[in-house]
C-alpha cells in the first residue's frame, strides 16, 4: 500500500492547516478580555453590595447608607458624604483598575473586580 499518494498528502496538509488555525485562534481569543466589571462595596470590612456595572448608561442604582450616597451606573462613585475630608467624593467615578474609593472616617471602600488590570496593586 502506497502511503505518499496525492490524496494522503492533501489530507495531512488539511489536518495540519486546521490544527494550526485552532492553535492560532486559541492564542488570539485568549487575549480578548472578557470583562464583567462589578462594584464591590464594603462597610466596616463587610461586603454589603455587589453590583454589576451597567452597560447601558441610563441604568443606575443609588445606595444611601446614611453616611455616603453611592451612585452605581456604568461607573461607580460617591456623590455625597458626611465625612470631613470628602476624599471619597473627590476620588470621582471608577470603572476599572486597582484604585479603590475609600472613605476612612465612614469605613467605606468601593472596589471594582472582574476587570483585568496592568497592575496587581497600588502603593498609596
Amino acid at each position, binding site marked *: 500500500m502506497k502511503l505518499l499518494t496525492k490524496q494522503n498528502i492533501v489530507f495531512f496538509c488539511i489536518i495540519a492547516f*486546521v490544527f494550526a488555525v485552532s492553535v492560532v*485562534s486559541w492564542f488570539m481569543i485568549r487575549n480578548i478580555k472578557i470583562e464583567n466589571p462589578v462594584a464591590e462595596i464594603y462597610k466596616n*470590612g463587610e461586603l454589603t453590595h455587589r453590583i454589576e456595572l451597567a452597560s447601558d448608561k441610563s441604568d443606575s442604582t443609588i445606595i444611601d447608607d446614611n453616611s455616603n450616597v453611592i451612585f452605581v451606573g456604568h461607573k461607580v462613585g460617591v456623590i455625597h458624604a458626611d465625612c470631613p*475630608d470628602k476624599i471619597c467624593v473627590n476620588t470621582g467615578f471608577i470603572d476599572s483598575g486597582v484604585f479603590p474609593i475609600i472613605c476612612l472616617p465612614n469605613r467605606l471602600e468601593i472596589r471594582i473586580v472582574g476587570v483585568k488590570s496592568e*497592575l*496587581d496593586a497600588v502603593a498609596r
Partner: protein
Amino acid sequence: MRLKIVILTVILFLGGLSGCGILNGSNETPASLSRTNFALGTFVTVSTPDTSAMAAAAFDRAFERLSEIEMIASAKNADSELFYVNQNAFKNDIAVSEELFFLLETGLYYSSLTNGAFDITLGSVVELWGIGTNAEFVRGKPDEPEISAAIENSGYEHLVLNENDRSVRFLREGLRIDLGALAKGYAADEMKRILVENGVTSAILDLGGDIHTIGNKNGAGWRIGITDPRSPGESCMVVRVFDKAVVTSGDYERFLIHEGVRYHHIFDARTGMPADSGIISATAIAESAMLADTLSTALFVMGAERAIEFMRIIEIAPTRLEIDYVLIDSDMNFYYSEGFYPELIE
C-alpha cells in the same frame, strides 16, 4: 475520502477549541481567592490565585492574626493593650506582652535611629489633629497653644522600656504612643508569615495601600503602581517585586482642609504640624513591610537631602539592609536609591 476529511477536520477543530478552553468559557479572568476586612484603621485585602480549601484556611488564620495584632497595637481601640498602656503608664511601670514590648522596642529603636523623623510617641499630636477620624473629632486646624502642649507631651526620650520586667513607663503625663506607622507593616509581615507557613506560595496583601507580596505571579514579578501624589487616582511609576513590601507615605491619602489650606496626616515631631520637608511622597521597598512602613514615614519627614544621606549611612551600616526607595518632591522631581530603576508612566 471526502467524508473522512470533513469528519476529521470537525473533530480536530472542536477538539482544539475545547481543549484550549474556548468552548467552556475558561478564558475569563482567572479565579482567585480574595478577602477584605477592616482593621488597624484601614481596609485590609488579601488575594491569591490559589482557590484551594488550604488557601482559604490559611486566610482564616492570617485574618485571626490580624485581629490579634489589632487588640495589641491599636491606639484607637479602647479594648487594646496599647490603649491601656496609654492610659496608665505615666509614672507607672506597666508590664506588657512580649509582642507589644517588641513593637515598642522596635519603634523606639527607629525613633532614635531617625532622630525623631519617625516617632512612636506622637499620639497626642495625632489625636489633636484627628485626621482621618469621624467628623465629630475633626475641629479643623488646632490652635497654636494646643499644638505646643501636644509637642510637650511627645518625644521618644520620655518613653522608658525596661527589658528585665518587660515594662513600660511614661515620663510625661500626656504622652501617647501611636504605632500607626509601624503596626500595619508588622501586621503585613505576620500575615505573610502565617500564609506561607500554611502553604500559600503566591499572594498579595494590601493593608490600606501598604503592599506586601508572597512569591511571584505566574513566574513574573508583581507589578505594583506607585500613586501619583498630584493625581492620586493614577500611578506615576511601576515597580516589579518578588516577595517584597512596597510602602508609600504621601500627603494625599489622609488630610483635612482648613481655610483653604490642606493639612496632611504625617507629622513632624519638632513642630507638631504636618511635615513640610518638600517631599510629597516617599516609597520604601524592603523584604520587611514593617521596615518599609517605618522608613517611608521617616524619609517623608526628613526631606530629600537628609533622607538620601540617611539611606546612604543605613546601607553602609554593618546590618546592610537591602532597601530601595523613591522620593518625590513638590516639583515632581524623583530621587531613587542607587541601582533602582522603576518603570515610569508618562
